[in-house]
């Protein structure tokens, strides 16, 4: 069914120029402004909630992984496995495992996806702090918590932030697929557009989600720069 509709969409689009499609897209933006804003809002939630929870899970887990080998190996492996499952498959998998359709299963699937980049960067960021700095910190009488707070976290923070950025931008893209399991968001325009063979509707989902990804990337890039300690930049 999907393949058929895609074929007809492509056939239809091949008969039109892209500029015609764009004109129709802009008309649609005007006429369906409310729908667009609602979908955008849903989309932001589809990104913010999983990424937010992923941060809360991945940073402490990443820190623990640098302390205990027993955490490091299972945590990093599980997260990698989660990431290797194709995103559409992971979303679809929510249905047979009993989570059904709608926003909640979408959040959970995206969360599984969002954890790895943050976890990995937290781990490598902290593990990568120069061993001599840690020895100096310990030798001067810092406790483990003080070392984490005063030395390791400030130095690892730009790297952790880069993980958050990667994760967020990636989830903005993946969240488009959430529409397939009824998760809403900008992806719903695309799914409908494909079904109805409406290129303007496809663009109504595609262009704002692409713009959202680009702007988020720019802003988080700034944040990353901002959290980099001044001493590392001079």
């Amino acid at each position: 069914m999907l393949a058929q509709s895609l074929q007809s969409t492509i056939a239809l689009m091949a008969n039109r120029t892209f500029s015609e499609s764009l004109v129709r897209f802009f008309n649609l933006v005007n006429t369906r402004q409310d729908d667009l804003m609602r979908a955008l809002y849903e989309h932001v939630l589809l990104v913010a909630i999983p990424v937010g929870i992923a941060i809360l899970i991945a940073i402490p887990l990443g820190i623990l992984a640098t302390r205990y080998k027993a955490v490091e190996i299972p945590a990093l492996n599980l997260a990698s496995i989660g990431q290797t499952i194709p995103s559409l498959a992971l979303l679809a998998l929510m249905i047979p495992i009993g989570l059904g359709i709608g926003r909640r299963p979408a959040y959970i699937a995206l969360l599984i996806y969002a954890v790895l980049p943050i976890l990995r960067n937290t781990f490598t960021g902290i593990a990568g702090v120069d061993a001599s700095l840690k020895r100096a910190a310990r030798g001067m009488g810092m406790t483990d918590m003080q070392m984490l707070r005063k030395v390791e976290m400030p130095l690892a923070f730009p790297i952790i932030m880069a993980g958050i950025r990667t994760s967020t931008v990636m989830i903005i893209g993946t969240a488009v697929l959430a529409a397939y399991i009824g998760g809403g968001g900008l992806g719903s325009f695309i799914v409908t557009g494909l079904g109805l063979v409406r290129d303007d509707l496809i663009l109504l989902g595609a262009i704002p989600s692409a713009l959202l990804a680009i702007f988020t990337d720019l802003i988080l890039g700034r944040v990353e720069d901002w959290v980099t300690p001044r001493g590392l930049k001079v």
Partner: protein
Amino acid sequence: MVVFEDVTKIYDDETVAVDGLNLTVERGEFMVFIGPSGCGKTTTLQMINRLKEPTSGRILVNGEDTRDMKAVDLRRNMGYVIQEIALFPHMTVGQNISVVPDLLGWSQEEKLERARELLALVDLDPDVYMDRYPRELSGGQQQRIGVLRALAVDPDVLLMDEPFGGLDPLTRDQLHDELKILQDKVQKTIIFVTHDMDEALKLADRVTLMRDGKLVQVDSPEEILRNPNDEFVADFIGSERRLISPLDVLVREVMLEDIPKLGSDASLDDALSLMQEKKTDYIAVADGDDFKGMLSAHRLQELRLDTGPESSIGDAELITVTVDSRETMMTAVHRLAETEEHVLAVMNRKGKLVGAISRGWLPDILAKELWPKEAAGFETEES
């Protein structure tokens, strides 16, 4: 003061890093640990602040067993400087110096004041350097800050693990001089690890030479140079370093330690027979601990002619020229020449008589220093 009692460290892979170490580092002493890599010197250092725990034995710092203290308290009261320098790159110079004061909860003003005071101590302008970041400094400047960071809370003991190993020779030389000046000002008990013999000889009050986790020799640099315990020490020092001038030898190393003594009421004849008996050309005149001066054989002969053999030595003009036991023979020889005396009394730093340098013995001393082996042969023939 740091005391090692039967300290042994065996790693998990059963390597014996330190083997039954017994050693006392005195308060205010600059002790250098030296030896080839893997000899256990760094392990020994890291056991003092418990970055490594001894497998057996104990370490006392100022009389207290380090195991009875909390590791973080122990470390905060002990400076630690390492080869990698390891200033925290995200902190300014001022913040780096204030790390331990910060851990101890000093106020912002106290921390600032101390950091400025310490910078001034090594002639770095606080207004210029306080807010700089480590990356903006040269390697030499960074390690100066590293040393200041270790001194921030004025600890009794300073641990330095090859602190100048990563610096170029010129900078290293400069920092050696500065460290010596600094040590004169702050008088810390310094335990310094290096594999560089020149560094050890230049800085140390005493040098501890280690091999395979054991002490091979613990002595002053002069003594190590002159009397290496065995072939290993001699090789480690290197033959070129041993060719030092006999006049650079310290008085205490070569002075005559056998000093016949008489009270001031003894007669000149008593003095003569004592000299003959002890085969010396001098005696010390002292009433109990009250040292009056030296009497040389040369002067004794003059006095016997002038005042007769029965007169008491207390009435004679005694030689009161002295030399400090820590001075070099160069100084002693000059003093003998200037004063035209025949014997010098050697005093230790507390002003107590500990030996003598006599004109008659100079050739022997110099010969022993210049040609130690031949002198040793000569000595056995004579005795």
